Each structure stands twice: as structure tokens, then as C-alpha cells.
């Protein structure tokens, strides 16, 4: 990392060498090498669009290079809806400079002024049919030089690809069943590994009878290091059989205690915490407090529950190791692998290959260390490790449970005088590569274990963690926002889509709805009256208009609205939910409006918003990690159901395009607003406030009991 040059986008300043981003290769190709990775969000296509636009080449010439610590720019982690913002800006600037360098070289070679040249699909041409191309000039224009910030990216009006819905470049492989995922990758001589994990949380492996496993045909090695144990076999079926035999021979200690899942709020509020004032505002005014109301909101632990169990491949060559992984951050994973292995990071190469959809810090990095540890016993052959469904559902980090209390002082007209928002939650980030201690599961299990990492919260400057989206965008005169981060962590938590944003927006927007209705004011009008940001008002108005807010009441139907600007600095999103409800809730339709500034690929934005809306609906109606006093009990899709096709709402999305405003990501914008919109629609339909997620038959009955 170099010092930050203020003229350059942050990620280009950190990785200024132009050749690390772009190379022109034989056959008229452009190899584009971002440090961000495809996790099912379509990012590589959007980045290819930006590059093709800036270089004036057909997008079909752009080949996306998979991120690898061997060659890629270090762009940290692919998370936080920041890839367009960070990588996109860096690529746009890098390509603008490259285009400028080549234009100068073309002008020299062709002997005409640069102004007289046009660039079309990589070919520079000028008067009298003179022409050359990036590929002809490539030898004369070394890109082993640093970006200077000296070139201007194209004006908005001159971009032809950004802002259009180019088809995603990864989709054909996927619909034709061509190997594209790490799960489908086969290396010469590849072996298969499986790791034995306890059912009881953090149980210690007391003894292990390996004889059963050793009797399995095709066994290559049984590996044991403290409480970490696994097998390496010639085939995947042999590895499964050997694991089963190993499980029979394992004697585990009892697990460490888990909280009472029936009283998560009580648990969260009873733990030792680190308390932080996130924000405070005091505006002198003439409103006088008449009374105070207080509400408590709950969100359970939520599983990533990716469609694919995590997978990784590792290959040792003497003292060096090569790792293939679907991690969100190849460099960060490398840092932690070096800590565990006690070898220099330069001896480790971490290369990305796509996995299934990733919604945050799941088990991808854990699986990578598993593969590295097992591959040590593989005699220089690559070892592929794949987790079981049950391990994926129980041993991967979860999104943290949250208890949120909001207290509002209201005047005699129920106008807000002061707002107090308090959060009790584990931290929302324990990602690898961020501290002096590794955050990888097997690192906590080996003979000389590293201490288990207690999750922390990113600072507000980076969007916050448990406190994400807790600072109101509304113009309340006074507020105090406080976050209590737990210092114990019986249930492993880390980053899941939106971090605390979903919980905080659910709480804030539910409470606002309650106050608006108490005042007899339309919830949309109430919000508009309290927002000073026109882009915020625009998405609310657009969603309301599109949903024909507010349709006449019909028995058994309800409508609700929710709004947030993700991280208070990212995408603006408003959602209107239409639900049908009796003893169970069905979300019929979600209507959303979103503003991401410049939408590079509008259909990609819509896809992300639709997906976020449906995933949020699943969280709200179905999801909750289950556990007893010592084990996670939601080990399968039966115990951890998610929304199915017949239950998915219709989703209608309007993108408000602002081509002149720097783009931000769309992947996490919908979750909070949709959650709140559904909860508010439930009240509209049934006159019941559900303040504890998920909204199920049981939580409806419990909420009815409270209101009765």
C-alpha cells in the first residue's frame, strides 16, 4: 500500500501501477484485473462495462481476471456494497489514463494531432485512413507506471456502456452447466478432504479412535491437531465414508453453554458490554415534552445459508502453499493463513474462484484453512475440502441477534422532541485479516489454539456495525444513539448483509409508523415532512406513487412503507409492502424505488434490489437460527426453512437514474426498508405490532397477547 494521493480514487492510490489493473493481450483482448470478486452479484460485468466504456473497446474483448494475491490489486474485501464505488472508480480512472497514454502514442506513430484521432473498438483512426490499435501500440506503451490522476474520465454523455443493461458475462456458463464454481474445479491428482466438527458448540476432542477411518479403501491420511481432525482420501465418497468412521471414533467434551433462545433480549442485555455513544444531537426548539413512549425490537441470529456448502482447494509445494477459495478477500485470508501457519505471507498464494451466492462473512475462509491443514498430509497433491450442509448451517458465523430499544419524548401533538435509540448486540464483524489474531475456525481448534475472536463493529465512518443506520436521517430536534457491544460471544457472529442495518431500520421505521398513525397522519406524508434530503423524498414518493399509495383498505390486506439510505451514505431505497394476513402472513407484492446515483447496469441494480427484497422477506417471515443449551439445532433446510417459489412476493423496482452522481452499490439497500414495510403492513392489516422477528404465527400470537 502506498500513501494516498488525493487526486486518485482510494483503491487506485493504494494500487497505482496501471499494469496491475489492465493488460492488452494477444488476440485483441483486454485483461481486466480487479481486486473485487464475483459473489453472485454481477460485479465483474459492471466493472467490464466501466473499462470498456473508458477504453472505447467492445465489451466482448474484456476478459475478467480472477483475483489472486499473485497479481491482483489489493482491494481488501468484496463487501459493504462498495465494489462499484471503490473498484469502479479506480478502474474508470486507470482506464482513462491508459487511454490517454495510448492516444499520445498513436498520435506520435501516425504523425497527427491526438485531436484528429478517434477510437473505435480499440482502433485509433485518423484522416486518410491511417490507423493503429491498443494491441499494435502495446509494446511502445509500458503500463508498468503509476497512475497520476492526470487524465479525466469521459463525460457522462460520452459513455455508451455505463448506464445500459449489458448482459452478465458469467450467465451463459451457468445456464449451460459449464464448470465455473470452485465446487466444479478438478485439479490433476486432486484428493478429497473432510473435517470432523462437533455437534456441541466448541466441544473439545478428548480422544479419537482412527482405526475405523483407516480401514476405508482410498484413505490417504487421518489428520489430527488438537480438536481439529479430518481425513484425506482418493475420492469424495471415500472421504465421506472415512469421516463417518472417524465420527464414530470421536469422544467429545460437552459444549459451552448457549443462551436461552426464548429470551434473546434478556440475554443480550445481561452481558458485559462496551458502550459507545454513536451520535448525539441537540437543537434548541420550543417543543415541550408531554410524554415518553418506549418500544423494544428484536432480531434473531440469522444464517447465511448459502446454497452451496463452503469449499476450498489447497496445494503445498515444499514450504509454499496455493489456495483456491471463494473468500471475499484473498489478501485478508492470506494474512490470517500466514498467522496460523507461521510462515511469511509471500509463501502463500490465494486465488479466487466463484462459489455460490455470498451474503457476508460465511465459512469460505474457514474452509480454506481446513484445506490448507489437510493438504499438509497429502504428499504434494491438491486437496479439495467441502463442508457438509449441517456444518455450513451451524459452524459458519451468523448474523448477530439484536435487541433495540427506542424511546421518544413527544409533545402534546405527538411531535418528536427527542429520540433515543439503544442497541444491544454482538459485534457484526470478525473478518479475517483485520487483527493480530486469526479469525479462522480451525485456528481456534488446533493443539495450540488462537483465542476465539470476539466480533467488533466497524466505525461509523465506514458505515458502523451494530449501529449501522441507527442515526436518523429525519430532522428530529434531538437524539442520542447508543450502541452496547457484547464482550462475550457464545454464538459465533460476523458480517451478514447490512450488518445492523436491517435491525435498526426495522426498529426505527416501525416506531415512526406507530407515531404517525397515533397522530392520525399518513405514514408517507409523515416521513416526507421530516426529511430534508430531496433524493430521500424522491424515492419515497416514487415507491408510493408506483404502489398507488395508499389503496383503499380491504379485509385481510395491509400496506406498509419503509425507507432508508443504506449506511446513511449509500443507496436510497423506499419499499411499499402489500401483505395478506390472517394467522400467517403472505407478502403479496413489494414495490421499491432506489437511487444509487449512476446505475452502471440498471438491470443489475434491479436484480440486486429484487434479490435483496426477496431475501429480506425470507428473513422476516421465516428465519431464525435455532439452538438448545449447547448445540445449534437448525442443521438443515427443514430446520432452517427459507422462502420458496410459491411464497416469493412479486417485486416491482423503479431505478431513479442520476448519471452525474458517483455510483454506489445496491446489494444491501433493500433489506431494511422491506423489513419495516412488511412489519408496518402487518399492523395495517391486523392492527398488531410485531416487534420481534421473524413474523410467524407464534410471534403474531405473542404480539396480540401483548397488545391485549
Amino acid at each position: 500500500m502506498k500513501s494516498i494521493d488525493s487526486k486518485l480514487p482510494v483503491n487506485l492510490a493504494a494500487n497505482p501501477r496501471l499494469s496491475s489493473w489492465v493488460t492488452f493481450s494477444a488476440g485483441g483482448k483486454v485483461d481486466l484485473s480487479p481486486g473485487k470478486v464475483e459473489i453472485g452479484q454481477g460485479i465483474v460485468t459492471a466493472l467490464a462495462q466501466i473499462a470498456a466504456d473508458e477504453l472505447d473497446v467492445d465489451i466482448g474483448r474484456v476478459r475478467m481476471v480472477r483475483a489472486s494475491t499473485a497479481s491482483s490489486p489489493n482491494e481488501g474485501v468484496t463487501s459493504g456494497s462498495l465494489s462499484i464505488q471503490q473498484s469502479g472508480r479506480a478502474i474508470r480512472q486507470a482506464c482513462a489514463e491508459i487511454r490517454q497514454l495510448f492516444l499520445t502514442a498513436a498520435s506520435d506513430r501516425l504523425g497527427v494531432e491526438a485531436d484528429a484521432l478517434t477510437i473505435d473498438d480499440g482502433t485509433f483512426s485518423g484522416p486518410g485512413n491511417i490507423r493503429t490499435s491498443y494491441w499494435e501500440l502495446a509494446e511502445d506503451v509500458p503500463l508498468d507506471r503509476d497512475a497520476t490522476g492526470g487524465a479525466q474520465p469521459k463525460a457522462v454523455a460520452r459513455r455508451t456502456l455505463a448506464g445500459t443493461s449489458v448482459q452478465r458475462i458469467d450467465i451463459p456458463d451457468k445456464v449451460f452447466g459449464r464448470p465455473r464454481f470452485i465446487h466444479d474445479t478438478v485439479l490433476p491428482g486432486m484428493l478429497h478432504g473432510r473435517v470432523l466438527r462437533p455437534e456441541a458448540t466448541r466441544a473439545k476432542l478428548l480422544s479419537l479412535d482412527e482405526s475405523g477411518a483407516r480401514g476405508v479403501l482410498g484413505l490417504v491420511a487421518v489428520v489430527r491437531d488438537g480438536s481439529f481432525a479430518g481425513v484425506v482420501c482418493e475420492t469424495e465418497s471415500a472421504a465421506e465414508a472415512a469421516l463417518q468412521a472417524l465420527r464414530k471414533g470421536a469422544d467429545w467434551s460437552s459444549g459451552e453453554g448457549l443462551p436461552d433462545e426464548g429470551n434473546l433480549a434478556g440475554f443480550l442485555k445481561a452481558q458485559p458490554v462496551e458502550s459507545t455513544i454513536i451520535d448525539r444531537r441537540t437543537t434548541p426548539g420550543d417543543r415541550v415534552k408531554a410524554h415518553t413512549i418506549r418500544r423494544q425490537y428484536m432480531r434473531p441470529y440469522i444464517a447465511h445459508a448459502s446454497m452451496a456448502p463452503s469449499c476450498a482447494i489447497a496445494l503445498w509445494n515444499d514450504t509454499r502453499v496455493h489456495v483456491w477459495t471463494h473468500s471475499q478477500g484473498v489478501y485478508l485470508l492470506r494474512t490470517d493463513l500466514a498467522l496460523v501457519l507461521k510462515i511469511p505471507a509471500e509463501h502463500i498464494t490465494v486465488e479466487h474462484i466463484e462459489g455460490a451466492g455470498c451474503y457476508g462473512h460465511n465459512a469460505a475462509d474457514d474452509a480454506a484453512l481446513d484445506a490448507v491443514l489437510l493438504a499438509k498430509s497429502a504428499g504434494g497433491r491438491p486437496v479439495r475440502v467441502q463442508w457438509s450442509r449441517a456444518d455450513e448451517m451451524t459452524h459458519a458465523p451468523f448474523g448477530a441477534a439484536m435487541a433495540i430499544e427506542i424511546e421518544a419524548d413527544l409533545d402534546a401533538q405527538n411531535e418528536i422532541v427527542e429520540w433515543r435509540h439503544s442497541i444491544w448486540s454482538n459485534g457484526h464483524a470478525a473478518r479475517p485479516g483485520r487483527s493480530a489474531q486469526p479469525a479462522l475456525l480451525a485456528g481456534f481448534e488446533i493443539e495450540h489454539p488462537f483465542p476465539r475472536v470476539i466480533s467488533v463493529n466497524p466505525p461509523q465512518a465506514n458505515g458502523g456495525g451494530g449501529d449501522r443506520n441507527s442515526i436518523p436521517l429525519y430532522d428530529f430536534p434531538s437524539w442520542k444513539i447508543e450502541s452496547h457491544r457484547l464482550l462475550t460471544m457464545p454464538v459465533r457472529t460476523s458480517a451478514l448483509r447490512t450488518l445492523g442495518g436491517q435491525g435498526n431500520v426495522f426498529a426505527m421505521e416501525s416506531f415512526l409508523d406507530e407515531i404517525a398513525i397515533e397522530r392520525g397522519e399518513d405514514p408517507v406524508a409523515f416521513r416526507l415532512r421530516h426529511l430534508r434530503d430531496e433524493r430521500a423524498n424522491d424515492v419515497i414518493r416514487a415507491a408510493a406513487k408506483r404502489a398507488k399509495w395508499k389503496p383503499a383498505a380491504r379485509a385481510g390486506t395491509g400496506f406498509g412503507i419503509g425507507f432508508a439510505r443504506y449506511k446513511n451514505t449509500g443507496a436510497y431505497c423506499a419499499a411499499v409492502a402489500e401483505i395478506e394476513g390472517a394467522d400467517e402472513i403472505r407478502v403479496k407484492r413489494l414495490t421499491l424505488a432506489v437511487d444509487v446515483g449512476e446505475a452502471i447496469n440498471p438491470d443489475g441494480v434491479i436484480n440486486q434490489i429484487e434479490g435483496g427484497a426477496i431475501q429480506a422477506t425470507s428473513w422476516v417471515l421465516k428465519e431464525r437460527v435455532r439452538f438448545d443449551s449447547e448445540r445449534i439445532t437448525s442443521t438443515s433446510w427443514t430446520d432452517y426453512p427459507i422462502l420458496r417459489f410459491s411464497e416469493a412476493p412479486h417485486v416491482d423496482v423503479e431505478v431513479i437514474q442520476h448519471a452525474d452522481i458517483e455510483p454506489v452499490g445496491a446489494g444491501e439497500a433493500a433489506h431494511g426498508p422491506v423489513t419495516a414495510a412488511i412489519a408496518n403492513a402487518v399492523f395495517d392489516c391486523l392492527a398488531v405490532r410485531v416487534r420481534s422477528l421473524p413474523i410467524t404465527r407464534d410471534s403474531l400470537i405473542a404480539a396480540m397477547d401483548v397488545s391485549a
Partner: protein
Amino acid sequence: MTLIRFRLNGALTEIDDDPDRSLLDLLRERLGLTAAHFGCGAGECGACHVIVDGRAVTACNTPLWSLVDKDVITLEGLGTADRPHALQRAFIAEQALQCGYCVSGILMSAAALLKQNPRPTEAQVRLALDRNLCRCGAHNRMVRAVLRAAEEMATR
């Protein structure tokens, strides 16, 4: 080991293997056909759907002995880039996925549906795909793509 004979993607196939071995295992590990994906190993997610005698089944818990003389189609046999199935064209046209890990199983469920019911309603499509899970939330795009394929197949 037992000699098991069945049709795979139109070709008569003879396999000498453990009759209790799962079809998914055979496809992925021995035959190198990796379109069908492992998701849960318990027949609960549908990522491994293939078509056996016209019905979409979970390959992860289909033992080889049950395939004798059956007709098995995997996504590789549904169509290729040169000769795509209408469903594959429609999934590209609708950009009907996010990560795409589940999509191979979903395409097979949809193909079985269209074989049985060439003009399904939207509700029938949703019901036919209900045994397939999608975690990214691409459900509606996939439903639109299936309806688009049905339309195209009916009008060509």
C-alpha cells in the same frame, strides 16, 4: 460392484459401480458432469435435480440401482451454447439468476414441467419449482424465464 445399464443424455451407458452409490456422485466424480450441484445431500434443496424418466429428481439421494433401464437427462444433455434449449435461451434473456448455483437444478425442474405441461400458468410454474431453493432471491426472474420459454416453444 454391479453392472448398471441406463440411458444418459440420450446415450446408452453401462456403469460397473456400487449400486448404492448416488447418481450425483457418479455424475460429478466419475463422469465429470458437474452441472448438477451438491447443496445438501438430503434431497431438500434441488441443486442436484436431473430428469429421470420425465420427472425431476434429486440426484444426491437417487441410488444407481434405481436407474436400471431408465432415461436420465442432466443439464449438459438439455442443450448447449450451439444448440440451446428454449429454457436456456430464456434464462439468458431474462438474466434469470444471481449466483447461479441453484440454476442447473431449477432448469431441470422447469424442463420436466414443460414436457408435462407445455403452457403452465405462473402459479403452476411456482409450484413446480417449489422443491428448488434459491437463496439470492432470483425467483421471479426464473419464473418469468420459464413462462417465456413456454411461450417460445408454443409459438415456434
